[in-house]
């Protein structure tokens, strides 16, 4: 059963392009075409405006929270080609870092799993992807850029969760090297772009290489989401596209990805978001509707709500 906790008037002067709740569910950040980002304190059903962040000179497309172990950090990306990291210190939100080495609108930002440190990936319409790694001790940022990651433009990014079982790493190896479990894990992320492809990138030494190119969509990819891993052998990515379809890609060994078409919607699909345990997928698109999909025991996906409004009636077994 889904219950409405609260509704919120964002107070933005133009349409909202993103809303994101932080790790603990205490703060809500929204970004809008009016070039601002607002942060609300939503603790205990309240909705107090905590901060109104101005710093972008164009519509802000996306925002994302960093893991709280790094402090209260928010990243935003905008049409003005900038990526800004904001940080809260003593209740004051200030610009922590500004990255402006993209030549066109930056469409997506995504933080890596916290185990890897404070790492942010940014995808831009100039086709490139930037990986910003923060040295938390010095506060300096190291930037790696994947030029021409997607021809025409990169629209979405999502990191592979760090807790994935690594099939190349057998138990014997684990014994001799008990602390390798996390350190030896390969960093990966997925990206989607205007070349209609979802690409899987993997870190190889100090470079990022394209591991896979998944091509089934026949129009621009608008969002990708890597499912959280609870340790099951298979890992999944959801992608949605201008072609009105949502595809779930699954693999067991990172070599062979099997696409499953979740559904073809009435309008373009803009967002996909996995629930915490990866059993529910939220989908939203150009027709202003929100869908929740749930997988049953046999691996069949079914829509459990056409709109989150209606989801109130849906009870789980």
């Amino acid at each position, binding site marked *: 059963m889904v219950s409405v*906790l609260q509704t919120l008037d964002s107070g933005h002067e133009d349409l909202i392009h993103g*809303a994101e709740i932080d790790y603990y569910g205490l703060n809500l950040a929204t970004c809008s075409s009016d070039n601002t980002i607002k942060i609300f304190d939503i603790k205990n059903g309240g909705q107090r405006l905590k901060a109104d962040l101005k710093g972008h000179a164009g*519509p802000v497309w996306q925002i994302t929270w960093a893991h709280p172990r790094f402090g209260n950090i928010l990243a935003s990306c905008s049409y003005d080609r900038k990526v800004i990291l904001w940080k809260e210190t003593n209740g004051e939100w200030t610009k922590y870092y500004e990255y402006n080495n993209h030549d066109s609108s930056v469409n997506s930002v995504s933080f890596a799993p916290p185990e890897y440190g404070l790492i942010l990936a940014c995808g831009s319409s100039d086709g490139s992807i930037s990986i910003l790694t923060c040295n938390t001790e010095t506060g300096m940022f190291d930037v790696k850029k994947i030029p021409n990651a997607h021809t025409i433009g990169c629209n979405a990014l999502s990191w592979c969760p760090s807790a994935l079982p690594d099939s190349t790493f057998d138990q014997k190896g684990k014994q001799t090297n008990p602390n390798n479990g996390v350190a030896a894990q390969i960093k990966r992320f997925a990206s989607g772009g205007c070349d209609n492809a979802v690409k899987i990138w993997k870190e190889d030494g100090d470079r990022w290489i394209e591991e896979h190119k998944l091509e089934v969509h026949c129009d621009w990819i608008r969002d990708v989401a890597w499912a959280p891993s609870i340790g099951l*052998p298979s890992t999944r990515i959801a992608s949605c596209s201008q072609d009105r379809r949502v595809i779930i890609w699954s693999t067991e060994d990172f070599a062979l990805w099997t696409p499953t078409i979740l559904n073809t919607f009435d309008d373009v699909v*803009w967002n996909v978001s996995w629930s915490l345990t990866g059993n*529910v997928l*939220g989908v*939203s698109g150009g027709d202003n509707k929100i869908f929740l999909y749930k997988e049953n025991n046999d691996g069949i996906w079914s829509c459990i709500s056409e709109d*989150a409004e209606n989801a109130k009636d849906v009870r789980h077994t």
Partner: protein
Amino acid sequence: MEIEIEEKSPVIRTAEYCMNLEDLQATALSINYTGQYLLLAGRRHLALKNLYDYTEPLKLFNRNSKFEVSCAEFAICNNSSAFCAIATSQLIEVLKWTESSPVLEYSLRAHTRVVTDIDWHSKHPYMLATCSIDTYTHLWDLRDPKRPILSLSAVCMSGATQVGFNRVSGNFIATAHDGDLRIWDIRKGSRPVQYITAHLNRIHGINWSHTEESNLITASQDGSVKFFDINNPRRAERIITTPTPSPVWRARYTPPAFKEGLVTIIVPLVGSESGENSLLLWSNSKNSQSPICSFTGHNDVILDFAYRNDPYRQSNDIEIFTWSRDQTFRVWKLDKELQKLCIQNTIETENGESALEYHQRNSTQPSCSLQHEFSIIFFPSIPGIQKYELDTDKRNAMIRIVANGFIIILQVIFPSGYPFSSPPIFEFCPGTTLDDNLSLKLMKSLKDSSASRVKKGKACLEHCLRALVSDLKKETGGDKAHYLRLQSPRLEGALSKALSDSLIPFPKTSGVRFNATGILVTFARPFTAKRFSLRNQTTTPRALSALSGGYLGNVNGSKPVFYPSKDIDRKSSTGVSICIYDASKLLMVSRELAENYVIIPTNLPRMCRKNREVAEEFGRADLVQTWSIAETIALALASSDFELSDDEMFSSPNPFAKTFLEALINHYAKLGDVQTAAMLCVTFGRYYQEISSRTSSFSTKSNTSQSVSPYHTVTAMDVNSQSVIKYNAWVLAQHLKGQTRSNSWSDSLDDFRINEVNRSVLGESNRNFYDNLKKFYADILYCYNLLPARALILKFVSSPAAFSSTVEFVTECQICKKTSKSPSCLHCKKFLLYCSYCQLPIKGSANSCLSCSHSFHTAHLLEWFENHDVCPVAGCRCPCADNFGMT
């Protein structure tokens, strides 16, 4: 010499006349052949201004179209001077201006997409060319307006954005397709005679020379203006680039009456200063690389301009009329002085003197006179200046500046040596609303810039004021006037530098996002906002350019894009746009259960029973059953001598338990119910038992059968660092919650000799999977702020967490000064720590006082400090008990 070039700044001219037409929302401007009328065309009105008599009110003619006017052009022949072509959407209307009102003469329909440009033939009064996004360029003869007399098809993907008739012969037409130029000969028909790859980026303007038949210029997004000779199209004859590489929106030769000139409109980059919203005059000379004159004053992007020859004022001065997005039209003069500069530039290249030096000698020479300096500063042209008082006798000035909500009242005192030896003295007077930090910063930059100007003997007031205002805006951010709005057709393309908006995805206006604790946040476009689709387009467009490329003909003004009009009550339109849902029930992980579940490793049946009761209490009938089964299994296990049975299935008292439990865990994991799966893992998996160090010697009895387990290789030190990590995470979590806890970690080390008791019912093969489940559940507990429960779950994870790279405890050998993590020095083989109590080397668990650095066996430490507070070492008065947290 190079410094000299950098110092060159163009002459600055301000407008002769300025008129604000806020309500007009015009997008196109044109002046008729005789120079009598100025037309401003917009979606709702056509406005005609009589330029012979500025006092005559503006004539307004309503036209309420759904679409913006993309282009309006008066005919440029005397015979047809009453004609005017106006393009809206796909249609071109040719109006004839009569005494009272315009009459629609012809409607030209042939284009299938938005018409982007119109150009009249300069010789044939009835001929005009139009081009469109549909890639076609049509030639029309108004005597036969039913269909174009010639259609030029550019077989390419990109639509035609500009069209221009050759001004000398009228036989050639140039069209722009993105960065490419096509030259057509209208006598030869439908194939281009030349292809010119002019720019790498979109061309915004084409202009043919008035004198040379084969010359034309192109203005482009890439920030350059190129001069081409169509007979030699391989390379540009000359390229001029804008100071900051901002896109050039228009570039036009000055009319024949003003020689050797070129005027450009620059589109300032997003967020740049208002000073860049200016027209620039350049010399046509090949050697001139910087503009000669900058016409400043507009606060926003200039949309279009036109020249006018004023025949009645008996002067040969050309006037320029501009229309800007700031909704004002302004008039500027190209006077003789500028003409001189333009020509001089061409001549002076021979005698090696730059026009600017010449100009500076001639115009700013008398800057020693304060009066003169004041007189040449046109204060209203500096943005933000509200009020000013100048007193030349007392040699001071009071200036009130308002920008971004800050008020500055600035007093400037000019010493007698100004501007040759001493800079003016600046002071912020009472009433200034700057904080100390900001005012210091601004004052410093004022001083710096004035000093550097004065060093060269130049007047500095205007320069400093402009710098002050722009600094203030920069420091305080939020310079609203320059925030980008997606509004003007085509211009938006120019505003993004490298790629046009057609490659930027259409903005998302609805979304859904789960957070880590199972909160679902959704937002959607309010119902009052516009739907984006066209009738013939069933789905939402994919690219941002759809907003400005003509789909939405009525994007207007500086209002937010998506709202139909300002009148809408914002509250109701955005009121319910964000919804926050509690979707945790959907996720099968329940906070209530997490809060109430118990873990009792020593009494499994009781643990299962308790947890069953918890499930019952919160109405989870499905889990009640599971916990009942678990209790049954646990009871069976407890009744057998389990510790010796290890995990060999056949010796297990309940051979089906293992497979059954594994299937159950898999089932819940697949369902996404990490909570139940992890709790089952914890119940029946292996676990550690904490025993104090004194009993540790008994604890290795089951090690013989555990060669597959990594734990017996874990040294005491390793375990310590593991605990440190957990501790760090815990402190961090506490810190994040804004709570503080006293630092008392040493007590956790007291009995940290951990021994594993293997009671695993679950097999080894899936250990990794079970660990992941536990870790994942621990992460969820962390989000719920259930830290003790999280730590408890993590105790059951078999592989140790990663070692902390930041905190590490090492001991330095007293003899060889090398550090070591083991109890003895690897180098000299001596023990590193000796117990201050029993004087024996310490091999096991140790504690060191951080203030007196004396070490103890943990057992001895406990023993001593049970009754004492002070360090047992002779003469040491350190109150160690406090440091160990024993008091």
